[in-house]
């Protein structure tokens, strides 16, 4: 089913006789697998309003992100939360839509300095599970009129309604950027160095530690200012290792696009994403690496962190997964290993605060484990209550979030 207007969308939902599977650009097939008629928003296409002087853009939910980025670039502006493009990591095709970005609250490295997608979302229009068209928020920077359903809709993965229009705050592009790198840091030193950088006044807009153990720090702004801060920051972190400076903005940007898209884990079969307190990083890393201590030649995982240590990506291939399976009884298989790994990481997060989401994995695995971190009972009760109100028939991406 493809709809081209909000009204058609509302009628399609109202008239639905069974579950619906909402699809933007279809660059993802993830979450707990959803059955249902595909309802595509790709036909809801177009920028309805763009006011560079007010830093706002309003677009229909099915508008390709690329179109929005092109329009912004022409005015030297950007989506500051730098949404990830999943196609490399997941090996999918299709055109990511702005509705898909909002529905997943997708946010990149700049999350730590400017906030997430939800922090830039000013207003939404959506059709709830009963087919009612609802608006919340608007297109101004500050708005506390009534409850903030805007935040609630961001990251609700289509389980509360289908977005038809979103309005977003945009920001000026930085004049230039530079990246400071230190090679060969272990997780503890990298976490310390990133904390020192983020606790400095130099406005670090990216802090990541890559699979190859390189730590990267990004500075953006006007040229003189970036030069000044590069000098100051290099001085501040030199005690952690030799500092290399990438001052060519194009080269620097390439580094951050790869980090944003988690390119380094593209070859992995199972990829888990964790949001944790940064100082829990080394403990998490240590525990995970040593999960198989009793087993000789236990697996080593590929681990990448962003957000100064607060965002951890863990990837495993088939061999590593088979090794994971050895810690439990039963025939060691990649499938069992995936299950062990995801449940292990979720239990770690439940213990130390934070959450783990299975981002990439075969359908069987996604059926076998909770894709999203299980919630505490009260939060779960409230979330279920909200889903019941927004979608009384339980037809919107049913079960996707568990």
């Amino acid at each position, binding site marked *: 089913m493809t709809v081209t207007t909000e009204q058609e969308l509302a009628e399609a939902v109202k008239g639905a006789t069974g579950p619906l599977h909402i699809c933007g650009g279809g660059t993802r097939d993830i979450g707990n697998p959803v059955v249902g008629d595909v309802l595509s928003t790709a036909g809801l296409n177009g920028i309805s309003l763009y006011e560079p002087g007010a830093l706002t853009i309003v677009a229909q939910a099915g508008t390709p992100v690329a179109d929005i980025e092109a329009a912004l670039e022409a005015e030297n502006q950007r989506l500051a939360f730098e949404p990830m493009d999943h196609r490399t990591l997941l090996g999918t095709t299709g055109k990511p839509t702005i509705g898909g970005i909002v529905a997943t609250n997708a946010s990149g490295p700049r999350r730590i300095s400017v906030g997430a997608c939800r922090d830039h979302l000013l207003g939404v229009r959506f059709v709830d599970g009963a087919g009612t068209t609802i608006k*919340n928020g608007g297109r*101004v920077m*500050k708005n506390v009129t009534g409850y903030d359903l805007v*935040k609630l809709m961001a*990251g609700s993965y289509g389980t509360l309604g289908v977005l038809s229009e979103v309005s977003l705050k945009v920001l000026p592009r930085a004049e230039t950027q530079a990246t400071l790198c230190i090679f060969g840091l272990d997780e503890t030193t990298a976490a310390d160095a990133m904390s020192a950088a983020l606790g400095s006044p130099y406005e670090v807009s990216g802090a990541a530690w890559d699979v190859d153990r390189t730590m990267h720090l990004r500075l953006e702004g006007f040229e003189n*200012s970036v030069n000044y801060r590069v000098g100051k920051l290099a001085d501040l972190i030199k005690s952690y290792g030799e500092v290399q400076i990438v001052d060519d903005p194009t080269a620097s940007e390439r580094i951050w696009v790869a980090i944003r898209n988690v390119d380094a884990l593209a070859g992995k079969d199972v990829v888990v994403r964790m949001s944790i307190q940064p100082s829990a990083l080394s403990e998490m890393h240590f525990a995970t690496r040593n999960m198989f201590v009793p087993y000789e030649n236990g697996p080593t995982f590929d681990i990448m962190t962003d957000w100064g240590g607060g965002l951890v990506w863990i990837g495993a291939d088939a061999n590593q997964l088979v090794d994971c399976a050895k810690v439990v009884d039963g025939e060691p298989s990649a499938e069992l290993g995936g299950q062990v790994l995801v449940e292990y990481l979720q239990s770690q997060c439940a213990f130390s605060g934070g959450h783990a989401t299975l981002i990439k994995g075969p359908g069987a695995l996604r059926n076998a484990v909770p894709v999203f971190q299980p919630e505490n009972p009260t939060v779960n009760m*409230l979330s279920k209550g*909200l889903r019941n109100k927004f979608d009384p028939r339980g037809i919107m991406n049913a079960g996707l979030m568990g």
Partner: protein
Amino acid sequence: MQMPTPNQNVLSRKAQIVERLQGVLRDGAVIHSESEVRAYECDALTAYKCPPLCAVLPTSTEEVAAVLKVCHEMGVPVVPRGSGTSLAGGALPTADCVILGVARLNSVLETNYDDRYIRVQSGRTNLSVTGAVEAMDFFYAPDPSSQLACAIAGNVAMNSGGAHCLKYGVTTNNLMGVKMVLMDGTITEIGGAHLDAAGLDLLGLICGSEGQLGVVTEATLRILRKPEGARPVLMAFNDNEVAGACVADIIKAGVLPVAIEFMDRLCIETTENYAKAGYPDCEALLIVEVEGAPEEIDEQLALIKDIALKHDPVELREAQDEEEAARIWLGRKSAFGAIGQISDYMCLDGTIPVSSLPMVLRRIGELSDEFGLKVGNVFHAGDGNMHPLICYDANKPGDLELCEAMGAEILKLCVDAGGCLTGEHGVGIEKRDLMTHQYAQQDLDIQMAVKDVFDPEWLLNPAKVFPLDSSASRRIAAE
């Protein structure tokens, strides 16, 4: 302003209710004598007053839970209260309610500079959160003008902003987690020291819910390292609209100041008489502040001054030292107080797209003539958050009503210009009945359905936010 008729069934049981509450709290934590409850009869919207049934001052989350359990069982409405500085009547009692004040919950529970957060009890004042981390050169960014008095509890409930939110965002952008008690006494934690929600973003929903979904007892807040320095520049213009156009040009140019504040003639003259900040004689002035190292500040201010020069300013005054910077801010910071010295006033809070500033300012001037009431404008121009101050005489019969009618016209104007009724003060009772101008019935219904989930009996701050007739069936069902 209409308020629901108090529930007789609650009023008549005052003695039992007080006794039950005394049973779960320490001595002196239940305030119920007629003279003492007067301290809680209003918030900063002083035009409306009503003493509550009683007030309680718990000292722990567990005590808050015990109070709510009692009230839930006995069907008594509860109005949470921080410091009572709400300008929207958010903390205004009803005669049949228990005021639940969190002022005694004011400790710092944890500070973590590596992960850049602080965990505090919600009764702690906004300024003292920064006070707790200042020695390490950190600060908590949202800075409402009331920050000396207002509590984090109220900030979270109203999603408060401040002069510096152009760069740092409002409360919701700096809030990482809360501990909260539901109306039935259930204690829960939402969010924490990590970023973003695991599932639905309930934290985003709770921030700004005006004390209607739960009572917040603790908050985890993001703290930031102080910038190396900051410097304001003052720009004076001979026309409001030109100043408005200058704001839009600065924003477009790619510099992101931390603050762009606007004052018009009435505010400039009044504050001059009151605070003597040495402001120039002009129609409108802007205070633009940027941050960084001295060289970085120079670079940004040069750009901003170039833009201002294209708009024929009467004066451009860049702070040469700390003292001059403080003087530039002095007038802005004392503006509300200064107006309060010369007149009773009502402070509005509509937000508009920055591009509509000139048009909206002109129209407000026209409305001022039509209604015959003076209006001062002092506001956060960078994000279009207007604060028209309508002056009236509380002793003159009919003047308050005239002022409210004019306020309603201005707020509708903001909505019609593509904006909203309130940018940071909240709806409370003040803008409750205007909600239908911004939202259709189904938009309000789904919001009320959210309250149904958190507080099915509609006992928490029930007479706020939604027009009384929209919420009537739910509130009456609760009785």
